[in-house]
């Protein structure tokens, strides 16, 4: 309303009256718009859009065909640099297998890439991190029951078994059999049911990979390990899944199997992914515990906490950087869980975070997650191509 005797400028009071309105408008937009924009490709990814899968696959292909070395990584620790090099080829190989399962017409193109990844994982350059820790070669000591090498052999064997599922008569079948038999013997001989990743270090999540690789090979080419695997699973669920939260315990004492770390997101979410290849129901239970105990939002962006609510913990090399309690690893690995167990809503929320933090760049037919580097892109590829379980509903 015009005041005849009022000042001709807009008064301070008038501006002050606007501030609450503008704050509300700003908050509303920040809460509703960015995460929806960041998630705009989520439906296409959820439906395994061929063009998107090809884009990320090409980017990962470019990485694995480069001359990667331990020195390509800068974690500050030689062992972790080696683990990241190993993880890059491992996740890339599994991702290519999954892509071939989703798009059988691409198999001919993908098989050489998968085999290149397996060859790289078997190379001295890659396995040196494990040799340094154990002071023995994991392949040359397959007949020695005391040389566990759970992580290197377990994840390698999972890749070999998944590849065997795709190509039953591939040239790595013999090494797949040898590793599976060696790991099965070590699992059966262990007093605590678990085998060691590095000397005196035991992680249940790595044993999920051990179990999954051996059990998948057992399913493809049955031997004598069926009963042992059934007993092992029962023992594992009883002793290494936290009764209160349903999450996997992160680390246990190598002597008595007592928990020496909390149940955590990074271990549980990677565990449910590797178990999904052979134990979809157990994988679902872990996924549901993850969703109930760890999943959350910030401004509509989905995240998965590293520790259950109420537990204060710090980030480490397993969790990756943590923001407001949400872990980078647990959030990333959960993308696969949401795809595998057909949780469209959680997938969309997590994808928006991946888009925001991963900074995907599309050019020359490749989609590269700029903040990922070789390992990050290989993991994202494997997570975004994880194969949904047969049956079930959303």
């Amino acid at each position: 309303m015009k005041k005849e005797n009022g000042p001709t400028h807009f008064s301070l009071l008038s501006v002050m009256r606007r501030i609450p309105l503008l704050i509300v408008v700003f908050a509303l937009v920040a809460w509703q718009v960015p995460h929806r924009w960041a998630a705009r490709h989520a439906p296409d990814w959820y439906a395994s859009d061929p063009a998107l899968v090809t884009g990320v696959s090409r980017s990962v292909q470019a990485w694995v065909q480069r001359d990667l070395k331990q020195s390509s990584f800068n974690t500050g620790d030689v062992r972790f640099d080696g683990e990241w090099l190993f993880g890059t080829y491992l996740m890339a190989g599994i991702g290519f297998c999954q892509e071939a399962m989703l798009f059988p017409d691409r198999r001919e193109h993908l098989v050489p890439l998968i085999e290149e990844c397996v060859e790289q994982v078997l190379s001295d350059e890659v396995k040196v991190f494990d040799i340094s820790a154990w002071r023995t070669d994991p392949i040359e000591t397959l007949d020695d029951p005391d040389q566990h090498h759970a992580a290197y052999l377990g994840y390698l064997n999972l890749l070999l078994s998944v590849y065997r599922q795709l190509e039953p008569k591939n040239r790595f079948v013999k090494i797949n059999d040898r590793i599976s038999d060696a790991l099965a013997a070590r699992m059966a001989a262990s007093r605590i049911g678990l085998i060691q990743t590095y000397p005196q270090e035991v992680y249940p999540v790595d044993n999920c990979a051990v179990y999954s690789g051996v059990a998948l090979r057992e399913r493809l080419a049955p031997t004598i390990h069926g009963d042992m695997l059934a007993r092992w699973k029962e023992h594992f669920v009883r002793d290494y899944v936290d009764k209160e939260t349903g999450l996997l315990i992160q680390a246990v004492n190598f002597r008595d199997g007592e928990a020496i770390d909390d149940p955590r997101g990074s271990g549980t979410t990677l565990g449910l992914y590797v178990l999904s290849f052979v134990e979809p129901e157990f994988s679902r239970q872990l996924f549901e515990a993850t969703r109930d105990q760890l999943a959350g939002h910030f401004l509509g962006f989905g995240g998965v906490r590293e520790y259950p609510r109420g537990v204060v913990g710090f980030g480490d090399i397993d969790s990756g950087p943590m923001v407001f309690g949400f872990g980078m690893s647990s959030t990333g690995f959960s993308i696969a869980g949401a795809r595998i167990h057909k949780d469209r809503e959680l997938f969309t929320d997590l994808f928006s975070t991946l888009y925001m933090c991963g900074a995907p760049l599309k050019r020359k037919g490749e989609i590269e997650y700029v903040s990922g580097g070789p390992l990050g892109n290989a993991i994202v590829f494997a997570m975004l191509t994880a194969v949904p379980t047969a049956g079930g509903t959303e």
Partner: protein
Amino acid sequence: MSKRLAGKLVIYVLLLIIHWFLIRYLADRQIVATLFSAGAAEHLAPALIALGFVALRLFLVLLLPGLLVCEVVNGILNFCDKISGPISDEA
């Protein structure tokens, strides 16, 4: 459109262009990956560039849409004030 609003929009567009170039520069040099590893202290300069990129991306994605809408709402309110005339402090 006031000169002030036009100036702000020019700054926003410039930031988007900087982001567009920076994401390509970082992809070519693989700098951001350095930030996420514990050894980033060995590579302080690239880590700072990467940190700047992350801050810019957070600003562009999380804050910019809200700021733009606020500018529009503020512009509409100014326009309404102009039509109805200024309101004095006595009101």
